[in-house]
């Protein structure tokens, strides 16, 4: 019963924050200067007065602001994301077909950075002061300071142009429609490698450094000393008493970075022509495609909430005490 009430409270909280987010989004988007009609005119090099009226009427921009806001919130409550007049399609369709690639990229990068960060951080922390530690620290510092798009281009230069191992961009081969399931998966995976590494690099660097210092700190804790006094081998101490404890702050931090991961995906998706949400956001902003923009903001905020729940789950796996509490 208590669990149910807690769950309800949580759901209500999420619903409330979604409405607040929707209102803020709408106000922000509509207070930006610029008019969708003029953007279309700007891109096609021609316009007349009738055309501008047509577009304004279609977008509902000829109605008062409060009425537009009311209509929008009503739609959000009904889970209706609206219709993109620019692309002549339902916003939910536009977002759904991009959601898969984005989730694939985001989750791959999320796990890659987390696992890589923990592993390299652990290696580095264990051999504190050695050459290996120095090398890992140096590389992670370099990765941290490298602009995402530049790293992406360099990887393309090496692995696509010089070595010709991996495709330079795209989600799948254009002939992929004729592939079998296994071949298709393999094709998508080969396209995924470079963007996933690019997106995860900076986070991996951060987690490596975090894990390293966390491990060094844990090494001086009482329970580690106790374990050593018990006569356990060094390997057992590391595995059972140090790594898990040290990984907890890294996982917490990774959850907080989920929002930034979506932001970073805009750049990575652009460089690698990855057909995901990030690019849809970018295109919608420049084209002033209000319905798509609002739908995207809503969906990405839900994604951030979802990733946070996922982090909670990983937390429980890494540190069983969380579940008990």
């Amino acid at each position, binding site marked *: 019963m208590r669990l149910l009430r807690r769950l309800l409270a949580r759901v209500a909280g999420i619903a409330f924050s979604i409405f607040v987010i929707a209102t803020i989004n709408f106000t922000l988007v509509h207070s*930006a*200067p*610029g*008019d*969708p009609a*003029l*953007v279309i*005119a*700007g*891109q*096609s090099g*021609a*316009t*007349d*007065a*009738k055309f*501008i009226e047509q577009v304004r009427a279609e977008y509902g921009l000829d109605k008062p602001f409060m009425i537009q806001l009311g209509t929008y919130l009503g739609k959000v409550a009904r889970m209706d994301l609206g219709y993109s007049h*620019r*692309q*002549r399609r339902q916003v939910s369709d536009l977002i759904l*077909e*991009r959601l898969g*690639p984005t989730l694939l990229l985001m989750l791959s990068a999320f796990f*890659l950075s987390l*696992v*890589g960060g923990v*592993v390299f951080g652990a290696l580095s922390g264990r051999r504190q002061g050695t050459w290996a530690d120095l090398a890992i620290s140096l590389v992670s510092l370099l990765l941290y300071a490298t602009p995402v*798009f530049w790293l992406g*281009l360099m990887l*393309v*230069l090496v692995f*696509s*142009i010089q*070595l*010709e191992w*991996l*495709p*330079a*961009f*795209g*989600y799948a081969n*254009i002939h992929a*429609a004729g592939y079998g399931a296994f071949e298709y998966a393999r094709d998508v*995976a*080969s396209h995924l490698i470079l963007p996933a590494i690019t997106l995860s690099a900076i986070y991996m660097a951060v987690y490596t450094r975090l894990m390293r210092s966390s491990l060094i700190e844990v090494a001086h804790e009482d329970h580690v000393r106790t374990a050593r006094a018990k006569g356990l081998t060094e390997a057992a101490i590391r*595995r059972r008493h140090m790594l898990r404890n040290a990984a907890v702050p890294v996982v917490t931090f990774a959850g907080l970075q989920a929002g930034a991961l979506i932001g970073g995906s805009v750049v990575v998706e*652009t*460089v*690698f*022509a990855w*057909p*995901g949400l990030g690019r*849809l956001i*970018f*295109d919608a*902003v*420049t*084209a002033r495609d209000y319905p798509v923009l609002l739908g995207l903001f809503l969906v990405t905020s839900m994604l951030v909430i979802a990733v946070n729940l996922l982090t909670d789950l990983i937390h429980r*796996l*890494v540190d069983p005490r969380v579940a008990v509490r």
Partner: protein
Amino acid sequence: MKRREFNKLLLAGMAVPGMELLRNGMAYAQTPAGGLISLLAPEPPMLVLSLNQQQPTIVVGSKMFESLLDYDFDLTPRPQLADSWEMSEDGLTYTFHLVKNAKWHDGVPFTAHDVVFNCSVMLMEVHPRARTIFERCESIVAADDHTVVFKLKEPFGPFIYAFEVDSAPMAPKHIYEGTDYKNNPANEHPIGTGPFMFKEWARGSHIHLVANPDYYRQGKPGLTEIFFRVVPDAASRSVAMETGEAQLAGWNDVENFDVQRLAAMPHLEFTTKGYEFASPLLWYECNLRKEPFNDLRFRKAMMHLLDRDFAVERIMFGLAAPATGPIASTTKFFEPDLPRYEFSVEKANAILDEMGLKKGADGNRLTIRFLVVPAGEMWTRFAEYFRQAMAAGGIEVVLETTDIAGWGQSIANWDYEVSNNMLYQLGDPAIGVARSYISSNIRKGILFTNTQGYQNAEVDRLFAEAAVQTSEAARQELYSKVQRILVEELPVLWMTEQRYATLHDKRIVDLIVSATGVNSNFASARYA
């Protein structure tokens, strides 16, 4: 989680990147047999040309949709859906004889009734540019199934240029008549008469067109299919051309500074032909309603401070020619014998001194605001160059940035001091040039009108008269006159005639065959 499981998780994490590295080396060039992979950026919002005329929409749409005519490199009309045509002596009646065996992609025959429906009903409703042209018609009738007669209210010299594919694309009457055009389900699966048919649009990735087996020209198209790959990043587009993952780049697909490097590659062919119909002219535009831009002397001083050759060499990397006036040298009625404003800082300073604009303690005479066009690298450089060039005359320039929507709003509502602008010439001065200079086209809130607010009754008269003349010689005389006046009065500061690079796979021939270049239907393109 048990300890052992946790260890497994750690191991699995290390194994994933390991497995990825083991993947064997594969070549990723994806050349289809007999097909073409073209770059596309940005992704178009839709593919029906009648409803949207943005650049990427035209590039893709022009392979599926056609109009009555296409134009040679020298802008001479040539057949597309019309096999032949004639104009009456008085210039009021145009008769088009249509091809007899053309079919829509759904098998329904294409007839004169389709043309009448498009030109007198559908385009009038949805196409801003076509509307201003077909408004001039008194009647548009189908004399028989394959003959269309346009009767004009008064002669209009450039009428023959109204039938380029994005100016008057033909959409099927049996699909669109009586429907809500913009929400017609056929917009998702375009139906045209062109040599390529719609197959699939994987949004964010590519658009796939396949050859039309029933195309009305024997033995065409020569390609089996076309893929348009959406590649948003300019560096990635260059990489794609380099590795052969894409075989065609046009317009701004490749950044100017990358063109020469790619053009030198042995597998690529390079040309600047195929942009004659558009022939864009780039200029600096000053708001003539504001001080000191309303003073002709100030505009002349600015013109002397600007080095057009520098812009050609350093900003456009040779992909341009210095502009000398309002009509591009690649189009008709260009007047070569016009006064020039040579690059001379001394002359400019002399004029500014004479105006009484004194240099202050900081060495500046005055400060002006420049609204940077937010459409890419080239525009930023034009803005930065302007600031640098004006500094030599003691004019301080403050660069203001915005996004494309904000730029459009500021220019359309005359809320700016100086900015850049670029307009297409669209085959004829009456269509593409007059609009920027005639006073009847000063219309607040609308882009690509006479936004700078230039007014001259003589210029209005000359443009009006030249439009209704049908004799080429008489038109040339009027346009030469108007060019002389405009160059003297400087309504805008012309900089460059833009050239664009088309790069394509050398094995494909007859790809760029007309003044519409990558915007034409590619029916004749084939592997050598």
